């Protein structure tokens, strides 16, 4: 790999101050590295601020993403208290809420599919409790009468992702990290043998022994500016927000189509009902997936589909007012696994990105894994499945550009 010559005391620059960059910065700083975090905008202003703060095992089948999620959800449960203790009562709560998830279906076929999926999850330690329609309505009294049954996932949780990212950054600062916002990366600093030794920015050069790109759906562009390649693309999602109300929804509730939507590769619009309430009293209604680049123009079709699906699960929502909607971009990777580790082509470049809609949940384990790999510590989970050099990604690498690479060492493109 490419970590020769990097010692534990080396400076690391983390590009991106979202939840994943914040978690990387904290893990690195607490392990003794001197860390500088850069973000072109404010901290936690991109993908982290435009989701629902999900910490989920329910939507993940057995495999590396579920392994990372299980480790990460354990970490969050402890971190919520650790951060509160470290940062004191004046710092906003991360609002960690072990509310549990409930997946419901209205057909026998749907239930059979859920049952099989849950059986696989149970084998690897996920708590998945089958519930009848009546039991589901005991958990959620306002569920539609047509709900036939489902699976209850007590390990699913939620938190406030902006507060959580800010808390991780504050904790990283206390360990010596420096966070600089409004600073955009413009190119690489290259050292001997073409090694990446920092970044040039709109506010001057930042030298570092290693560069970690944690820029979510914008990671491919940052990689490109540094002379590297990464197949991360934006996958858009929209959330509807109701006016505040008394609590009528107690878990994260979604219909059985959600998993299929997360695992699909299509660019076309896909929707499924994902409904939950927040501490502020609003109800968040999702979800949608579409690949339309970074287009921020909102269409009515996606809102209509989501609202219709949500009302099918919770009929009372038909008489609820929606006060706004927001949209964001998830970092989509074609093989549906995060990208965590060293770039196979450009020494000194590391990635922590590609979590699609699961970055908030996967952040702590990602930060620990990245820090362990970069600093030569022993990782809590096997890092290989997330390696940027894995064949499922590298097989997608475009043919080498015959023109000389601009601003980058020629070895950066293979």
């Amino acid at each position, binding site marked *: 790999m490419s970590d020769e010559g990097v010692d534990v005391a080396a400076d690391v620059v983390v590009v991106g101050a979202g939840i994943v960059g914040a978690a990387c910065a904290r893990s690195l700083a607490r392990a003794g590295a001197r860390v500088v975090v850069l973000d072109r905008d404010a901290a936690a202003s991109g993908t982290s601020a435009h989701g629902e703060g999900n910490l989920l095992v329910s939507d993940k089948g057995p495999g590396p993403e579920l392994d990372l999620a299980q480790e990460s959800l354990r970490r969050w449960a402890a971190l919520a208290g650790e951060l509160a203790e470290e940062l004191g009562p004046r710092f906003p709560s991360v609002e960690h809420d072990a509310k549990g998830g409930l997946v419901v279906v209205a057909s026998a076929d749907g239930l059979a599919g859920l049952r099989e999926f849950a059986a696989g999850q149970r084998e690897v330690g996920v708590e998945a409790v089958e519930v009848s329609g009546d039991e589901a309505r005991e958990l959620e009294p306002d569920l539609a009468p047509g709900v036939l049954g489902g699976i209850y996932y007590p390990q699913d949780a939620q938190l406030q992702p902006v507060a959580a990212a800010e808390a991780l950054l504050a904790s990283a600062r206390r360990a010596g990290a420096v966070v600089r916002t409004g600073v955009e990366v413009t190119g690489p600093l290259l050292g001997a043998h073409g090694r990446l030794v920092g970044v040039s920015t709109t506010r001057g050069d930042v030298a570092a022994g290693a560069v970690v790109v944690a820029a979510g759906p914008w990671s491919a562009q940052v990689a490109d500016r540094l002379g590297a390649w990464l197949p991360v693309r934006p996958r858009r999602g929209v959330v509807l927000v109701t*006016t505040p109300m*008394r609590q009528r929804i107690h878990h994260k509730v979604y219909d059985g189509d959600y998993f299929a939507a997360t695992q699909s590769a299509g660019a076309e619009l896909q929707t499924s009902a994902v409904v939950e309430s927040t*501490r502020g009293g609003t109800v968040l209604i999702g979800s949608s997936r579409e690949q339309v680049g970074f287009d921020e123009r909102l269409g009515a079709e996606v809102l209509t589909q989501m609202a219709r699906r949500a009302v099918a699960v919770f009929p009372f929502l038909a008489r609820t007012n929606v006060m706004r909607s927001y949209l964001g971009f998830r970092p989509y990777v074609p093989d549906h696994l995060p990208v965590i580790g060293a770039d196979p082509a450009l020494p000194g470049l590391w990635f922590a990105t590609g979590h699609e809609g699961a970055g908030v949940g996967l952040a702590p384990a990602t930060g620990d894994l990245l820090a362990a790999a970069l600093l030569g510590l022993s990782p809590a989970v096997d890092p290989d499945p997330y390696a940027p050099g894995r064949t499922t990604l590298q097989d997608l690498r475009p043919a080498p550009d015959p023109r000389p690479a601009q601003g980058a060492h020629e070895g950066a493109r293979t």
Partner: protein
Amino acid sequence: MTSYRVPAGSDPIEPGADRPLTIRVDGEPVTGTAGQTIAGVLLGAGQRQWRTTRDGAPRGVFCGIGVCFDCVVEVNGLRDVRACLRRAQDGDVVATTPEAGR
């Protein structure tokens, strides 16, 4: 901090005649002056909070310009009315906890 009503005649922005009106808030009469929003009437009567979050945190006027929805009340049976935007009319019936009893 307290909130109170400035007499209409000494309003530094737009002084004018005081045309009193009365609205009912959760059954209790509250007086204001024509031109005030419902939030204005409530604030003028010294009331700064009329809603709570699920955790019990107080809510009233936050943004004051219709964006945050923190000040929503029920007015004449219509839910989710932003008190900061709705001009008070004499006789308005305002419920601060429209979900109660539903």
